[in-house]
């Protein structure tokens, strides 16, 4: 009887194994060739080169598209689509000479008409591109001949080239963009960059393939890039160690430090023009009182935060501008850790017993945001300020932050950061602090308004004389710092990690990371 009984069990096992074994490709990792896999933290909202930029989009733009000019790793302007440029003696007209014979991925020639069509699209009020404010000083665009294009401004504009090197000035294929509506183009983008779009599976991967007709094609042996959104830092780190990922664009400093000891990996700790801090709505009590903001600055032990959460990858902020942004100047007025002083300032402001407030904490946008916020809350508690932390998903947070003007905004305070993607003070200051840029127009989302500051920012914008610009921006930094318009805490570096075999990755001081020139060593 024994033999008859066994098959029942055996069959179950066999069927189980069959079911288990059924499935796509088993076993060993496939040969990679020169495909590289890059771990990123979030899926980009859109791949439309003109859309509002998130860092995750910029990263993709850098490969799908070219701009007229770009940055190198020192933050200098270098040619991309434009090979030469000049500015007229009155400082109003910028003329660019375009690269000959370059084509978009769909075959459309990259010529002056195509570039002009791009700016027309960007400026079209029916299109939802809020970053057009970056280019609003451009009053006229002329396609002089097939490869020459001229931009005319109404006033001299000092940061013209920096602005055109911004990812939002990416040049998209005008034929492809005209064929699709403005929402679907962001899903199926066509550009002229060194890689073309192949596939986007939301939340899983974006795959780009080499554009062989690109002028950089000879320089690099990378034939395919896969960007993989992985929200969790630890998981990205493990991916690097197991070789699933060749590069991770951002990773928690603790992880980066640990990965540094792995002989196969390289840690990139390079300047990045990003500043982080607390962002109070200055139209609301108690933040409307400058003494309250100064008190917070004294109540926070910034050095402890930097040492604990960002060791080696950040430094305590000493100006509203991060080092590396023109013209950064460290401030002499200091807001050192001094809880007693903070309490005095609060008492002077009429809050001897402190107060309660809510702070938004976006998840997955900034390194260690939640931990830093909890630490800040504990420090502020010691001077009587009770912070209720409202942790929220970054998408919801952005919408809350972006879409409302000073009257309707529900912002009390948030943990916040700003990266200067042009390396120039105009971007760092005008967008964030000028009264004209109150949300929802742009990015003055805590509604600070100061006519002297507006004047200085305007003067910096409308001058092409570096000395004059420097003077205006240095004064602007003093005002902002004294007013503690944000409670600035630290400036932070790139903390990226890559496989040693991957070379010539570019990490720009403007925050952007790209693989346009990258190669894999065999």
């Amino acid at each position, binding site marked *: *009887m024994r033999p*008859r009984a066994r098959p029942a069990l055996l069959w179950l096992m066999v069927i189980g194994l069959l079911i288990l074994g059924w*499935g796509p490709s*088993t076993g060993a990792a496939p040969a990679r060739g020169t495909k590289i896999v890059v771990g990123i933290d979030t899926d980009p909202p859109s791949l439309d080169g003109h859309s509002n930029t998130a860092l995750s989009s910029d990263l993709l733009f850098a490969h799908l598209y070219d701009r007229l000019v770009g940055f190198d790793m020192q933050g200098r302007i270098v040619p991309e689509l434009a090979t030469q440029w000049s500015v007229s003696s009155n400082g109003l007209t910028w003329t660019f000479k375009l690269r000959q014979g370059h084509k978009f991925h769909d075959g459309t020639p990259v010529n002056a008409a195509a570039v002009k069509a791009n700016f027309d699209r960007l400026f079209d009020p029916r299109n939802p591109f809020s970053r057009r404010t970056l280019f609003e000083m451009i009053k006229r665009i002329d396609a002089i001949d097939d490869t020459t294009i001229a931009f005319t401004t109404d006033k001299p504009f000092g940061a013209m080239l920096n602005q055109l090197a911004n990812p939002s000035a990416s040049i998209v294929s005008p034929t492809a963009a005209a064929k699709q509506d403005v*929402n679907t183009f962001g899903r199926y983008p066509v550009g002229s960059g060194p890689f073309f779009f192949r596939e986007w599976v*939301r939340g899983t991967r974006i795959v780009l393939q080499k554009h062989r007709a690109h002028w950089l094609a000879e320089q690099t042996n990378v034939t395919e890039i896969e960007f993989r959104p*992985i929200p969790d830092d630890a998981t990205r780190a493990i991916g690097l160690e*197991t070789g699933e990922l060749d590069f991770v664009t951002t990773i928690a400093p603790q992880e980066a430090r640990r990965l540094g000891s792995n002989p196969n990996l390289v840690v990139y700790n390079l300047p990045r023009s990003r500043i982080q801090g607390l962002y109070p709505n200055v139209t609301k009590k108690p933040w409307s009182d400058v003494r309250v903001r100064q008190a917070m600055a004294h109540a926070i032990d910034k050095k402890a935060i930097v040492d604990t959460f960002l060791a080696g990858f950040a430094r305590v902020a000493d100006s509203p501008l991060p080092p590396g942004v023109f013209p950064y100047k460290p401030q002499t007025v200091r807001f050192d850790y001094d809880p007693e002083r903070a309490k005095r300032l609060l008492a002077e402001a009429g809050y001897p017993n402190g107060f309660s407030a809510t702070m938004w904490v976006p998840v997955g946008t900034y390194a260690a945001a939640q931990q830093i916020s909890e630490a800040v809350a504990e420090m502020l508690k010691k001077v009587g300020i009770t912070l209720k932390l409202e942790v929220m998903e970054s998408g919801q947070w952005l919408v809350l932050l972006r879409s409302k003007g000073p009257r309707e905004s529900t912002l009390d305070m948030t943990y916040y950061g700003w990266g200067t993607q042009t390396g120039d003070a105009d971007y760092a200051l005008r967008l964030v602090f000028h009264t004209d840029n109150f949300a929802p127009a742009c990015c003055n989302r805590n509604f600070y308004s100061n006519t002297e500051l507006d004047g200085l920012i305007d003067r910096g914008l409308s001058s092409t004389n570096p000395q004059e610009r420097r003077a205006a921006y240095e004064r602007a930094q003093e005002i902002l710092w004294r007013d503690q318009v944000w409670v600035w805490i630290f400036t932070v570096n790139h903390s990226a990690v890559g496989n040693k075999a991957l070379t010539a990755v570019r990490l720009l001081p403007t925050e952007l990371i790209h693989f346009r020139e990258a190669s894999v060593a065999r």
Partner: protein
Amino acid sequence: MLAFLMRRLGEALLTIIGLTLVVFLSLHLAPGDPAALIAGNQATEAELAIVRERFGLNDPLPVQYANWLARVARGDFGTSHFGERPIGPDLMHAFPISLSLALGGLVVAVVIGIPVGVIAAARRDGPLDLTVMGSAVAGMSMPVFWVALLTILLFSVRLGWLPSSGWGTFAHAILPVFSVSLASLALLARMTRSLMVELLLEDFVRTARAKGLANRGVFYRHALRNALPPLATVIGLRLGLLVGGAVITETVFAIPGIGRLMVQAVNLRDFPVVQGGVLLIALVVIAVNFLVDLSYLVLDPRVRYT
């Protein structure tokens, strides 16, 4: 036979109708304005008016319900208020992934759990049985997300054998499927054992033995066959838990399934996605329960034409 089928089918349909009603009403039971839930809590009054118009929120509830049902039946789950895109394709892409995760977990639980239970019953009250049953209670008590983290810690981090995130290859599926299955596996092993032990004491098995069948033959042929119907019920009931486990496991392993989609949607208060996700999952659970009922016909000789 036919009558039995029709009755079960009718019950399943009734449950589905009740379910759609619950899912539909949940949006309207929520405090505040359903339009605000759809449009996001930062929409302006003008935007809300557009939303009410577009989603027919000015209609009486029964009309709205009928319209919504008709749209869902066509596969139109509405538009995500975040990013203004139809959510049908997103759900349809994520759904098979979650389904294979949950079903994979179920298969592993059945394939390992039942034999383990049988073996434990055969060695009743011996050290093996006690070890297996002890581990089973422990396995049932471990939260799935903790199991998932521990497996990552061991197999990805320490040993480097398996990938810790993503989906698509067999290797990617091993850790998540194991995590999802553990609790059900433990429960099935326990159930199988206790059923088998009990059945072995029953008359018909004794009779069979008396008729001269050797110990093992009796054991498998009669006991296991009689244990299958209650086991099938449990398997059906477990599916809900497996799906719940899959929701969490997807988050741990960064698997782009429906659970991760829904959790993100909750964070965004993107209600149409939550609604669509719940409906899809619930439909599968109901369908499986229906299949379990049908399986009685095959498995249990006593249930016929009733």
